[in-house]
């Protein structure tokens, strides 16, 4: 009976522990109110995506290209950057942020404060594939006074 319990604990416990780490522990290491944005760079197709690119889906699922990412003025933003395949990098030139290398398979966190409303273009600074020019996106920071007119 003890053996069966041990096996069940392993089969059930391990996924629970991993889920907890991914959705609770890794998020709550930052102060409350932090805006977390996860971006994954995919060389195949030259895409920044918010999809979860994992072993099960990488080879057959076409990732959704990111649109504009809305932020609010005053947000403290943590961008959780992942590379699904090769060495990428991340930069927001307007903020003089980066370039920050994202080695293949690594996760890198980058923080900034969205102090002013406007468009913040981010892009990959490392020539990673023939589709490298497609690796860009925008944070759209909504100003507090403009909220109602957005």
């Amino acid at each position, binding site marked *: 009976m*003890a*053996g*069966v319990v*041990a*096996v069940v604990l*392993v*089969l059930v416990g*391990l*996924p629970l522990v*991993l889920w907890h*780490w*991914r959705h609770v522990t*890794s998020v709550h290491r930052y102060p409350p109110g932090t805006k977390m944005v996860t971006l994954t760079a995919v060389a195949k197709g030259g895409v920044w995506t918010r999809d979860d*690119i*994992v*072993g*099960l889906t*990488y*080879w057959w699922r076409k990732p959704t290209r990111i649109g504009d990412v809305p932020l609010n003025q005053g947000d403290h933003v943590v961008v*959780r950057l*992942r*590379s*699904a*395949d090769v060495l990428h990098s991340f930069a927001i030139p307007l903020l003089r942020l980066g370039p920050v290398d994202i080695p*293949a*398979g*690594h*996760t*890198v*966190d980058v923080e900034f404060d969205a102090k002013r409303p406007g468009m913040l273009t981010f892009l990959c600074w490392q020539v990673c594939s023939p589709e490298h020019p497609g690796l860009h996106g925008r944070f759209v920071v909504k100003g507090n006074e403009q909220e109602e007119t957005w």
Partner: protein
Amino acid sequence: MVTANPIAEATVPTEALEPPWRFNLFARWPWLKRLVRMRSFQFLVILPNLFMFYLFIISALFGTPVGNRNIIIVFVWILWWFMLIAVLVPFGSRIWCTICPLPFFGDWIQRRAVIRVRTGKSPGTENSFFGLHKRWPKRLSNIWLQNFGFLFLATFSALLVTRPIVSAAVFGILFLVATVLALVFRLRTFCNYVCPISGFLSLYAMTATVELRSVDKDECLKCKSKACIRGSDKGWACPWNVYMGKLDRNNYCGLCFECVKSCPNDNISLFVRPFATSDVVVRGYDEVWKACIMLVLALTYSVMLLGPWGRFKDWANVSEARNWAGFGLFAAGQALLALVIFPGLYYVSIRLAKWYARADSVPTKELFLKYAYMLVPMGLLAWIAFSVPLLMVNGAYIISVASDPLGWGMNLFGTADFPWTPLRPHWVPFLQVPILLTGLYYGLRGLHKVGRRIFTDPAQLHRSLVPPAALLVGVTLVFLKLFIG
């Protein structure tokens, strides 16, 4: 699977049949005997492995698709592979099978227990097993399936050892097949006849420095219960269907130690013995072909994974390079070399041996089977020589992946950002050369030992050794050329 050889025993001088020294570990270390006799022993050693395999499969499915940042690729194809081929097999025989989690669920369902023993009457045993109890077909009661299975996996090895999802798919299929076969057939049919890992373990375990044997064969003859193979209230029937009274080779003993628990005469022990000197008998064409396949694969893996020829890598990396014609050439070439060309060369060497030694009275089949032993230590050491740079160049990934097994950004031990650091790569050739030469030495030594069991005339013996020895030297030179240029 265990038979006597009246031809050899009738012609060979007695001193050639005497086994080398061996050392009784259970007598020297009684705590070891107490440990393996614990009912919970196997479960306790398998459980951590089961946890790891589960983690590997979860990591492959939900972790990063990048191979060197995913624990399944780094821990299985760098760490486990090196440990298996360089440490566990030569020093522990089939000790991997002791802790392998693949048959766990099949055993659990068959035995309806994880630890305890059930007595009863299932065909050929004194235990109660659940399942259909079908006999595995006699025609497949050999390692041919394992030969072709391993060759098939080797054809896709460029994908298998770099893509987490491919490794997970293979392990998942092996788990499933092992479980289904346990429900349909008797005992550990999967381990005996299907598992591709078991195939080469069975061959190279012949060289190992440990063996599980009966202490006194006369006690086995007198034993009425034959509990080692039939089981008892103390232990399950041997999952490998091995009778300890006749076991004289490591090939098909999976070191589960059930017989140590069930033997009513306390007549089974673990012995230490010299490397590559005891089990020198190759018994079937399936084993000969396994030896040929493994030696050829050591060569093709070295070319594909370690060599500078990008074209061959692209041919093997079909899912990205999409060069199907090249992949076809690679697959067909590898299969041809392993199944036809190299066995053909070996056969030619045997025919030449017979002609040169004027050994018309010795059947070609006997010489073909027996002299094939020389390929066993050579093949094992060739694989070790291949695996050394694998670990030395890529071993640093083990340190980083241990902290971030799924590539999610964890840092469990603070080493997630440990950089890729090849370990003394300039030492690699200086390690590979002595390893290969050691393989050559033990191959030639085994050849000589086997030859002494066949030929009583020294001149005839030595003439018969020349052609196969020349083949072995040629193989060694090819590997040396590949490794050091």
